[in-house]
């Protein structure tokens, strides 16, 4: 047993962080917020970097890596708040022409929503009758799909993979990346912001907020990584619950740690919170996940 990142995985993470921060750093993020649209150049750049083809076999033009590496990639995507239907495109690589290269943008019905419906080239799942709503997340346009009559397992439908264990796990990895990032932002702010003659991070009330954020992110981390290693669908469901919780609550605590600045549009904190809400929503209700875990007890 060696449940730690190996050298290759560390190198992969470093490489992906460089690509993502270089190509979608803070300036790019804020520019995207000011003018939301799907950045096809960014999409192709990610394709060129092998992002979408990470798990495709090498003889199919892919990188030939596994789910653990995919999870590391999506954790990094979550850190920088990469916009667009990256999970659906990633899972469509090899099946939908151009997805692996980032030339075709693929979205999929997820829970009661379809993200980025208008800008995507291919929509998987039954999006008939989908109605646009004004999305809480400025970077994730959302359509609501009408409630379908019960019957038919979603996994039997085309695009059912969008609700399958791999999609659940990759979204959880994005949540993990966001939770870790908001934890870092809170600590950074607590070190720099001075009140009463020193950094506010010297107050235990603030310290304990930050400590709890780390605990949430680290527990979600091992849950997500382990589910990727075992490939167990139920473990992915559990990881998703912990990762949703970590992303949403860490963003809330990060906002609190930032005080008044956290409530402003120019701070990035609200972008993390809103995206975390959206990702949790795409996974369907937490109730279903909790029921699935309870049923297995």
């Amino acid at each position, binding site marked *: 047993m060696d449940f730690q990142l190996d050298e290759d995985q560390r190198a992969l993470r470093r490489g992906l962080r460089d690509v993502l921060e270089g190509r979608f750093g803070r300036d790019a993020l804020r520019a995207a917020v000011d003018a939301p649209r799907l950045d096809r150049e960014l999409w192709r750049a990610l394709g060129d970097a092998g992002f979408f083809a990470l798990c495709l076999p090498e003889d199919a033009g892919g990188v030939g890596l596994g789910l653990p590496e995919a999870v590391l990639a999506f954790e990094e995507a979550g850190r920088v708040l990469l916009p667009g239907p990256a999970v659906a495109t990633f899972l469509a690589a090899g099946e939908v022409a151009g997805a692996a290269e980032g030339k075709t943008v693929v979205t999929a019905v997820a829970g009661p929503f379809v993200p980025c419906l208008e800008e995507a080239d291919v929509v998987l799942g039954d999006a008939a009758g989908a109605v646009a709503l004004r999305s809480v997340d400025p970077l994730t346009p959302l359509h609501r799909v009408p409630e379908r009559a019960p019957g038919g397992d979603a996994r039997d439908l085309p695009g059912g993979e969008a609700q399958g264990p791999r999609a659940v796990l990759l979204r959880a990895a994005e949540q993990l990346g966001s939770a870790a990032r908001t934890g870092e932002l809170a600590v950074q702010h607590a070190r720099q912001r001075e009140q009463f003659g020193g950094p506010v991070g010297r107050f235990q009330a603030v310290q304990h907020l930050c400590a709890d954020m*780390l605990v949430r992110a680290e527990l979600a981390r*091992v849950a997500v990584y382990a589910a990727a290693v075992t490939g167990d669908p139920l473990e992915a469901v559990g990881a998703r619950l912990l990762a949703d919780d970590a992303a949403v609550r860490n963003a809330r605590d990060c906002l609190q740690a930032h005080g008044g600045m956290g409530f402003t549009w120019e701070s990035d904190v609200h972008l993390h919170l809103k995206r975390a809400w959206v990702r949790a929503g795409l996974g369907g209700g937490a109730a279903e996940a909790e029921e699935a875990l309870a049923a297995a007890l």
Partner: protein
Amino acid sequence: MDLTYTEEEEDFRAGLRAWLAEVLPKLPGKPSPDDWPGRRAYDTAWQRTLYDAGYGEVHWDASPTRRLIFLEETEKAGAPYVGANFVGLLHAGPTIASEGTAEQRERWLPPMLRGDEVWCQGFSEPDAGSDLASLRTRAWRDGDDYVVSGSKIWTSHAEVADWCELLVRTTPVSADVPKHRGITWLALPMDAAGITVRPLRTLAGSAEFAEVFLDEVRVPVANRVGAENDGWRVTMVTLSFERGTAFVGEVVACRRLLGDLARAARANGRWDDPVLRRGLGRLSAEFAALWRLTQWNVSEAQRTGGVPGVGGSVFKLRYSHARQELYDTAAQVLGPGALDLDEPWTRERLSSLSYTIAAGTSQIQRNIVAERILGLPKGR
């Protein structure tokens, strides 16, 4: 990232399983929790059984993974806990092994491993809890002895222990001597004159630990481990030892308890309550992740040669909270039975109230995380 065990580790597991299946049915019944001599005899007999089968030193195994497998398998098989041997095998023993002289190791370690001698711990004091380094039990030299006066608290197994790993102040705190510098580690023979043990009754009604009063107790200088005034460093070696594998058995136990709880709820109809079911589902995710965190921490310890990393405090914070939640959920399953002390869950629920306090309160753990891991300024 690899969650599979090596062939050598799987062989160790298989051998242990086979051995447990053979010896556990022959064990005598467990003594009553209030029968201290009985508990000592039971626990030391189990240690002797382990020793005779070659598992006596398993807690000191250089491989954290083998320690994890041992704790996992013994818990799953329902084997006895380390019990009265805890302080010896997991605190005092590793300290003596690492910091003691050859004579000290020869004197104290073999009887500890055979289950012949039991140790207790004299660290905390009424006025030195989270701030352990402020301890005030005094020791001064008189010929070849230290003379010790003061009092200790929260000492488990004090009534039945042969030895106490004792922290004393040998140099008073002053402008030149910070509180960590004047502390010395002594092995106190519990039959020495001047020792009074007073059991402390917990809120659960049981006497789990004791106060120990020391009135000019003579301890030979030869019983000092490490240099005079170097006891704080010596102790930190001890305290860091158990991190990583400290809670392996408990996490395995919690996952089993969760299954028991689901069965009980299905049997008494509470399972029809979706709020309760969902709570159990979430706890299941929580404890599954805590098990993965244990494997993560053990793998880290394996790589770094046993140096505890970030994981210990993170684990302790989340685990202690989750375990209390488990018993609060058990109370919902029990319904009116939650107020009945004859329900084992009710007694366990009371005991669980100590988890966020013992071995470093959750608040101190958060301070440690904030200052040592996150690098925030020293708190106030």
